[in-house]
């Protein structure tokens, strides 16, 4: 084998010592080199949210063989998001939690709340060997937004078996979040009025557990199965989501004696337990690679979902590659999902009109073009994501039948990626 340049030397070293989960070998092999991966994401939903997110990570190998990786993401978000209220046959006016501003939605339109936010995420990974066949990765993250702070730590242990053809992974992660909603934390299911009670900051914490097996099946094929369990507790309610109170006969949004429309803050359970099973297979043909994965997810909120992801890396004669992508997603609704609440005197224990908790199907199609460089790669991808749900559910009442109660989400994703070593 002829070795040309640093990349070929690294590939040869990787081949000689290859473990199943040889991700660390992507990092620089020398302590004076940094493996830099960067990206710029443009995400835009039709008539809704637009996000621009530059990201960069840099990893280096210390003289002792440990690998440190520093990561940073900056999200800039603008646009509007559904607030949970349903369309009705008159203009609706919504007042912000602070009471300082208001916005209106025309008759028949889905009410959207304006959003502007930025998010900064910083992270560090430390990968080190514990013994010849065992290593672990410690990770710490901090994510900060105007009204949200998240701190997370995790550790993943990996042990090789069968001449390093099988790797067993065990991971644990803890995330602690602080939520500081604009105007205070609303009381769940309370009517939304200018004088609504509101609390201070709220806490949320999550524990993640993972057990996984990765196996080399043959010289061309790798497969992986992960079982994950997550337990979350604390404030799991979205402080900005509301539900419309609907007349049981006409389906119109109910008004009080002053002519104000009635909405209630959403309320979710304060615990959530979820499990997921993830399976992945990747197989190299002569040069092309097929990536196939499937995930089953379920939680005690009633959500069940299936996710299938397929990518095919097609090597061009020029040395570049094209990678078509298809992703299919389908989920059932949470038990407490309601597009609105009927004003008949009875209230459920929990209720949310968040479309993300409704029954939905998602389809993503995309194409990626990659140009391998002497010590890295440049790539660009373009994808379209569409989410659809029950626009006209059977339990719609009166005028609600005239409106789209689950508007389609149509998003465009463009990402540029650049990786190099210096």
């Amino acid at each position, binding site marked *: 084998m002829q070795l040309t340049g640093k990349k070929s030397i690294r*590939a040869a070293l990787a081949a000689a010592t290859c473990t199943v989960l040889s991700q660390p070998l992507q990092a620089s092999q020398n302590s004076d080199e940094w493996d830099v991966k960067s990206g710029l994401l443009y995400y835009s939903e039709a008539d809704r949210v637009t996000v621009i997110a530059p990201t960069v990570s840099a990893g280096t190998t210390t003289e002792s063989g440990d690998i440190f990786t520093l990561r940073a993401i900056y999200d800039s978000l603008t646009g509007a998001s559904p607030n949970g209220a349903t369309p009705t046959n008159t203009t609706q006016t919504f007042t912000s939690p602070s009471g300082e501003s208001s916005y209106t939605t025309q008759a028949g339109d889905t009410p959207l709340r304006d959003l502007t936010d930025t998010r900064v995420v910083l992270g560090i990974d430390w990968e080190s060997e514990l013994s010849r066949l065992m290593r672990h990765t410690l990770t710490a*993250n901090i994510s900060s937004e105007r009204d949200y702070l998240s701190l997370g730590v995790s550790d993943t242990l990996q042990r090789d078996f069968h001449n390093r053809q099988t790797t067993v992974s065990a991971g644990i992660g803890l*995330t602690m979040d602080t939520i500081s909603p604009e105007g205070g934390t609303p009381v769940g299911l309370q009517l939304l009025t200018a004088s609504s009670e509101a609390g201070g900051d709220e806490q949320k914490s999550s524990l993640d557990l993972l057990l996984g097996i990765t196996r080399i099946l*043959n010289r061309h094929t*790798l497969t992986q199965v992960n079982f*994950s369990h*997550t337990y979350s507790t604390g404030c799991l309610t979205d402080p900005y989501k509301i539900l419309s109170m609907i007349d049981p006969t006409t389906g119109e949004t109910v008004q009080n004696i002053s002519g104000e429309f009635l909405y209630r803050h959403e309320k979710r359970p304060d615990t959530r337990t979820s499990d997921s099973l993830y399976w992945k297979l990747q197989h190299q043909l002569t040069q092309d690679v097929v990536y196939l994965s499937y995930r089953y997810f379920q939680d005690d909120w009633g*959500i069940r979902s299936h996710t299938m992801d397929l990518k095919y890396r097609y090597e061009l004669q020029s040395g570049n590659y094209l990678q078509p992508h298809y992703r299919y997603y389908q989920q059932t609704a949470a038990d407490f999902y309601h597009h609105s609440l009927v004003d008949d005197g009875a209230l459920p224990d929990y209720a949310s009109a968040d479309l993300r908790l409704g029954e939905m199907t998602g389809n993503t199609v995309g194409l990626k073009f990659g140009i391998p460089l002497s010590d890295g790669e440049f790539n660009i991808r373009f994808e379209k994501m569409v989410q659809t749900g029950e626009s006209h559910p059977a339990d719609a009442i009166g005028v609600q039948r005239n409106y789209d109660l689950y508007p389609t989400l149509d998003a465009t994703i463009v990402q540029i990626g650049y990786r190099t070593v210096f």
Partner: protein
Amino acid sequence: MTTKSLFIILLLPLASCSMETVKPWDRDLLAQDKMQPTPDPVESALDEHIYYSKEGSFGGQGVGGGGCGCN
């Protein structure tokens, strides 16, 4: 479908596929960047965040992804 039965179904590919012995010197293909379990970590991280903020499900590939006010 219970989690237990799904776990068994998903383990079948691991249990039933005959595993050839692949010597270290035969792992040149598996050592390529495109054959790493996460070939493009930046793309994977961005995608994970997009779908986490737009769907009711999450996770599967790792632990401690970090929280976000988007969901």
